[in-house]
């Protein structure tokens, strides 16, 4: 059945005309899903009974034609083409029991669902816009009341004002001259100063992180700075012959030990 219906690339004349029309109009489409939905109409069946295999074929034909007419298609159209080519092969080949992941039928069913859902949203959008609407078909009170007014002044603002106000303040900081934020920087000098009195007690292997000053091991920015400074200071102390340093593996904890002076 597959052979007879899909093997040949020869679409009917009507299909060809439809496909050409699509090409000319490619700018008018809102992405690959939109194209698929339009193509699916040529099948003239309920979206629930659409042949996804045939649709994949139509879409691939559409992309081919665009290429042959040297029409630049946006990347997402090509991604969809690649995916549909994959789907097509899944649908045509017998399922490979060793391969996990969704079956071709599942993928096809999901695509059909997406198309049906998009179509449904378009239908209800049209129904919504076709309703009687305020200010067009029915109307609110045209005239404020003029009776004895107690004038109160009320200040108001919209959510957009609020968000844009906030953004204005926060993005202003983006432009301030670049100054290193010293709060979150731990220097090697500070680390050295901290470690010198401590290493005397490091008789056994101790994790580098245990040398971080208090309050520098939580926040990632501070932690990063403390790690770099403490590590650099450790190397300095190794160089001076006060300390041994080791790491069992890439990204494994770095450990320190006092160097026995007698050795």
């Amino acid at each position, binding site marked *: 059945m597959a052979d007879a219906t899909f093997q040949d690339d020869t679409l009917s004349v009507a299909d060809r005309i439809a496909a050409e029309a699509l090409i000319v109009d490619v700018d008018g489409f*809102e992405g690959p*899903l939109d194209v698929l939905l339009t193509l699916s109409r040529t099948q003239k069946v309920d979206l629930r009974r659409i042949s996804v295999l045939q649709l994949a074929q139509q879409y691939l034909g559409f992309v081919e034609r665009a290429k042959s007419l040297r029409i630049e298609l946006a990347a997402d159209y090509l991604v969809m083409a690649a995916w549909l080519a994959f789907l097509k092969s899944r649908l045509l080949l017998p399922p490979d029991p060793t391969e996990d992941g969704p079956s071709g039928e599942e993928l096809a069913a999901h695509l059909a669902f997406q198309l049906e859902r*998009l179509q449904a*949203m378009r239908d209800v959008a049209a129904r*919504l816009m076709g309703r009687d609407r305020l*200010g*067009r078909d029915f*109307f609110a009170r045209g005239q404020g009341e003029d009776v004895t007014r107690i004038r109160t002044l009320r200040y108001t603002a919209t959510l957009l004002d609020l968000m844009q106000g906030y953004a204005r303040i926060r993005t202003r900081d983006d432009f301030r001259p670049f100054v290193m934020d010293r709060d979150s920087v731990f220097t090697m000098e500070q680390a050295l100063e901290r470690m010198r009195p401590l290493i005397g007690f490091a008789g056994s292997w101790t994790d580098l992180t245990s040398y971080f000053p208090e309050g520098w091991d939580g926040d990632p920015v501070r932690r990063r700075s403390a790690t770099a400074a403490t590590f650099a200071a450790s190397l300095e102390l190794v160089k001076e012959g006060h300390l041994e340093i080791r790491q069992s593996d890439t990204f494994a904890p770095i450990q320190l030990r006092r160097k026995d002076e007698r050795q």
Partner: protein
Amino acid sequence: MDDSEIPSESLFDAPPMAEQERMVEAVLFASAEPVSVRDLETRMPHGCDAAEAVVRLRKRYEGRGVQIVRVGDAWAIRTAPDLGFLMQKETVETRKLSRAAIETLAIIAYHQPVTRAEIEEIRGVSVSRGTVDQLLEMEWIRFGRRKMTPGRPVTFVVTSEFLDHFGLESARDLPGLKELRAAGLLENRPPPGAMPAGEPDEDGETDAGQPELFED
């Protein structure tokens, strides 16, 4: 409310219902915006039953040139839609919405609360800059609660201005809502397999978390 009235030794009895109806009528006529029952009651004398007065008033205006309509939890007077032809003078030219904006609006209305990523998943294209902006500015959509999914994305929901504009009593009255739900087209179905862990149970949580929008 009843309790306060039963042993009506109170000095300030609520006015008779006919009078309450007049009051509601006056307030609704005076205001271009919908007025909530709560708002009505804070304006009316103590002990009034605005909800009941509105119901009676609504009945009284059935078939007239203007109607009492419900907008979310508020009430408003609007002209009967069949008389729109008399109002060319009042017609306000609404800004033409792009197809993308119309679809986005419909998706928000039918899928609310919905995240930007979900809108994009349904439309199959990214939501362009300015589309959401425009709908927010028209006050047809607003931010809903954040979703309880990783990243806690903001969501969008429709407003009572939206309901007012399209003559809907509530979001439950959206045309075709029931059919769409019955057909499973409002479900958030993740693509099979392809997705990283998390999403399916995320959605479960989400749905459980904010069902109230479409429920009675």
